[in-house]
């Protein structure tokens, strides 16, 4: 019975091919937008979560408060200094603490000038290991040459980006090349595998000492990174560090010019921002779905007017009101669902395109489209519902037609 209705509905949709297509466009633009936005948002959230898991739940960061325009720690309005790092080091529950500089520099190679960043590794072995872990540049990540050793002076390692995507007028960096960093020749001793974090991948990684000398920044600290004792209560340690730093920097509670965050908090901040952005975009997409729904309603309403006679015939040969209602509902639901299915395919294609072009042009693996099954299924059910709901009123009108009235045409 239902399959018969489905066939009847399909017949009348294919009879009005052009109009069916036009109606579906409204739906599939909306669904395509929702699918691609959610899948990209979800993918980005996954990527960020992964990045922060590297930071680890047992670490805290201290950074100056303010608007960051570059990588974390590059804010120059308020400075963290060597003495602040010492305060963190001495704080209760902190085992290792280190400072990380991320500074803008001018690089020259192959007669080509570029502005990029230099990131530092500390000399102390424990601190060095922690930074390498967090940045995801471990010894086994070196694909060519060697790891930067403590004590290396005018030497650096760079990511594969400088090999795969030549940034100096089409010329690769290879082990042994010398790049002038703010005028000082620095030798590339190793290439590390891409980390996926765009800031790390674009930075020259050097030892702290030579960078301080080169840029003449004896005491400034960028981002302070600290390891918390195993099993310690994170929030309590954060409080202790905050208290010590307030005292040292002589600021009142609530007026801190610095911020102590756990990896989890940083992650939450990113998630919230991303969530809001996604919600706004999905909201816009939802409006387009609404418009699509109205399109279906309009089409179905016209169909009812046009097909009064057909409805009259159906009723004369024994179709009950509910049969006519069901028939029209299936027809409009089908329009919605078909539109939804096309929309899902378009959305997936679009997300993949964004993913591929982002990877190719920005060199970041941060944008990975992700298609959870509930997104696909949900979109299908939703578009069917939009279609059916939009068809309800016209279908109800169709079912109410008196057979005599309908036949008199």
């Amino acid at each position, binding site marked *: *019975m239902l399959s*018969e209705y489905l066939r*009847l509905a399909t*017949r*009348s949709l294919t*009879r009005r091919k052009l109009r069916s297509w036009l109606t579906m466009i409204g739906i599939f633009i909306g669904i395509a937008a929702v699918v691609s936005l959610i899948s990209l948002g979800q993918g980005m959230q996954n990527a960020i979560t992964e990045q922060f898991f590297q930071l680890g739940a047992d670490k805290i960061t201290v950074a100056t408060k303010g608007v960051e325009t570059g990588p974390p720690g590059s804010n120059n309005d308020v400075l963290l200094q060597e003495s602040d790092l010492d305060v963190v080091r001495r704080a209760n529950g902190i085992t290792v603490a280190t400072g990380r500089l991320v500074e803008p520099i001018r690089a020259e190679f192959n007669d080509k000038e570029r502005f990029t960043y230099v990131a530092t590794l500390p000399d102390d072995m424990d601190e060095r290991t922690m930074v390498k872990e967090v940045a995801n540049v471990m010894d086994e990540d070196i694909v060519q040459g060697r790891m930067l050793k403590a004590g290396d002076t005018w030497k650096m390692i760079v990511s594969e980006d400088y090999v795969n995507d030549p940034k100096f007028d089409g010329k690769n960096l290879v082990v042994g090349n010398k790049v002038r960093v703010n005028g000082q020749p620095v030798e590339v001793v190793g290439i590390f595998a891409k980390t996926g974090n765009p800031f790390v991948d674009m930075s020259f990684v050097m030892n702290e000492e030579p960078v301080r000398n080169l840029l003449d920044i004896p005491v400034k600290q960028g981002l302070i990174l600290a390891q918390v004792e195993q099993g310690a209560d994170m929030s309590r340690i954060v409080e202790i560090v905050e208290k010590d730093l307030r005292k040292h920097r002589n600021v009142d509670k609530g007026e801190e010019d610095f911020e102590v965050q756990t990896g989890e908090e940083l992650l939450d901040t990113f998630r919230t921002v991303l969530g809001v952005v996604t919600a706004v975009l999905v909201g816009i997409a939802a409006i387009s779905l609404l418009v699509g729904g109205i399109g279906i309603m309009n089409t179905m309403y016209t169909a009812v007017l046009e097909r009064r*006679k*057909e409805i*009259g*015939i*159906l*009723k*004369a*040969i*024994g*179709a*009950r*009101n*509910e*049969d006519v209602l069901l028939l029209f509902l299936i027809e409009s639901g089908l329009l919605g669902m078909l539109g939804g299915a096309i929309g899902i395919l378009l959305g997936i294609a679009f997300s993949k395109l964004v993913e591929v072009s982002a990877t190719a042009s920005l060199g970041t693996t941060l944008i990975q489209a992700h298609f959870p099954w509930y997104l696909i299924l949900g979109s299908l059910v939703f578009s069917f519902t939009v279609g059916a709901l939009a068809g309800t009123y016209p279908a109800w009108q169709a079912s109410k037609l*008196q*057979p*005599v009235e309908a*036949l008199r045409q």
Partner: protein
Amino acid sequence: MKKAKTIIKLKDVWKTYTMGENQVHALRGLDLEVQEGEFLSIMGPSGSGKSTAMNMIGCLDIPSKGQVYLEGTNIADLSESDLAQIRGQKIGFIFQKFNLINTLTAKENIMLPMIFQGYTEQERHDQAEKLLKLVDLGERMDHRPNELSGGQQQRVAIARALAVDPSVILADEPTGNLDSKTGGSVMDFLKKLHKEKGTTIVMVSHDQHVAKHADRMEFLRDGQIVKKIK
């Protein structure tokens, strides 16, 4: 000879339409009985209330006053859905303009009323094929109405009317849209159906030559039966 069963009975049926400020009486106390197995034709000039009478007999419309009984049941007591169900079961319609569904093939058109009566797929196929052969369209099963001639379309419509084995066939000017030769063959077919299968037929026509094919004729004028012929 056993007493014939009454299939449809109209008792003092009035139908009044309001047109602007005027009340137009399409039917003024129509009394009519249709017996099982008879071939009745209702004749009348245009404006005599033929079509309204037809709609009443076919339970497509509800009288303003008076009662319509379908196999003894007053249709006023039925819900709209029940009425549709019973109409689909007991009455087969043949219209002047054929009224086939254009998107469906001949066979599918015939199967349509059976869907609403809950026939199984197999029953629908078998019955539709049987009926198409009966109306000599066995070769045209998968043709759409617009690929068939007028006479062929009307034969499909007749087959559709017979699909659920109704108690009565109602034909509204069945030859009105056909040339006289094709119209004649459609009439021959209806007569054959009546003679060989004993199908009850009620036909409305303004054409005396067509109406004469019936066993019994009623003459309608100004919404009333006026006299009997034959």
